């Protein structure tokens, strides 16, 4: 059976900006380039839009970014408390998601991500490999999303069809 757990303690930062100066300063501060292709991510930086990323880390990113981007037109916002991070894993995890999500999940591989709706709630999906999915959900939707996913897990057949 698939399992759902909440991951605490991650520091989430929304970063917005554009242009070569912005990208160079961010790369210098973070030590890696921001993903440029839509719906891709490294795990540490997930593409949200052509000028918007979600940074996921164990340490505070806002200080170094504020220093590196001083004077530039950009936004650096700590959203750690605003998003709940859920992890869905185990047999049938993908089927559980698919039962409430119209996006084709099959082509999604580690290194990609997608924002979409899960049971109408906005969610950022990140496949972590081996059928493990990370879900970033707005804090105010988290209780609903958890309850919905627990229900969907209970509704899955006990064994995979032949």
């Amino acid at each position: 059976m698939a399992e759902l757990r909440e991951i605490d303690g991650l520091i989430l930062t929304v970063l917005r900006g554009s242009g070569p100066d912005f990208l160079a300063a961010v790369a210098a501060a973070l030590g890696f380039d921001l993903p440029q292709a839509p719906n891709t991510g490294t795990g540490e930086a997930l593409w949200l839009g052509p000028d918007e990323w979600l940074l996921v880390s164990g340490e505070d990113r806002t200080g170094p970014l504020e220093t590196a981007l001083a004077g530039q037109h950009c936004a650096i916002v700590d959203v750690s408390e605003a998003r709940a991070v859920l992890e869905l894993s185990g047999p049938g995890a993908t089927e559980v998601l698919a039962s409430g999500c119209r996006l084709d999940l099959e082509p999604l591989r580690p290194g990609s991500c997608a924002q979409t709706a899960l049971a109408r709630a906005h969610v950022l999906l990140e496949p972590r490999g081996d059928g493990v999915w990370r879900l970033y959900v707005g804090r105010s939707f988290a209780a609903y999303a958890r309850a919905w996913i627990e229900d969907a897990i209970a509704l899955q057949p006990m064994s995979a069809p032949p």
Partner: protein
Amino acid sequence: MMRIECPWCGGRDETEFHYGGEAHIARPEDPDALSDEAWADYLFMRANPRGVHAERWMHAQGCRQWFNVLRHTASHEVVAVYPMGAPRPDHPETAA
């Protein structure tokens, strides 16, 4: 259910998007110079064709970007997707 091709994210269900009304409605340069009639025309009067319609959409549950769409109002066929600020593409069924 319509499928709309987000220029960034690819094809997604209509429910992920917000509709933004008719495209290419330019705000008058000098609203004070307009008659009440002309101002009302800018604010309220919109095309309502049976056919291809230029309209704005935003990928609300995705990348949150705005873009323009040519949609056939009878068949809901999306015949073109193009960036904000770009001129309306020519289309055989386009009755201006």
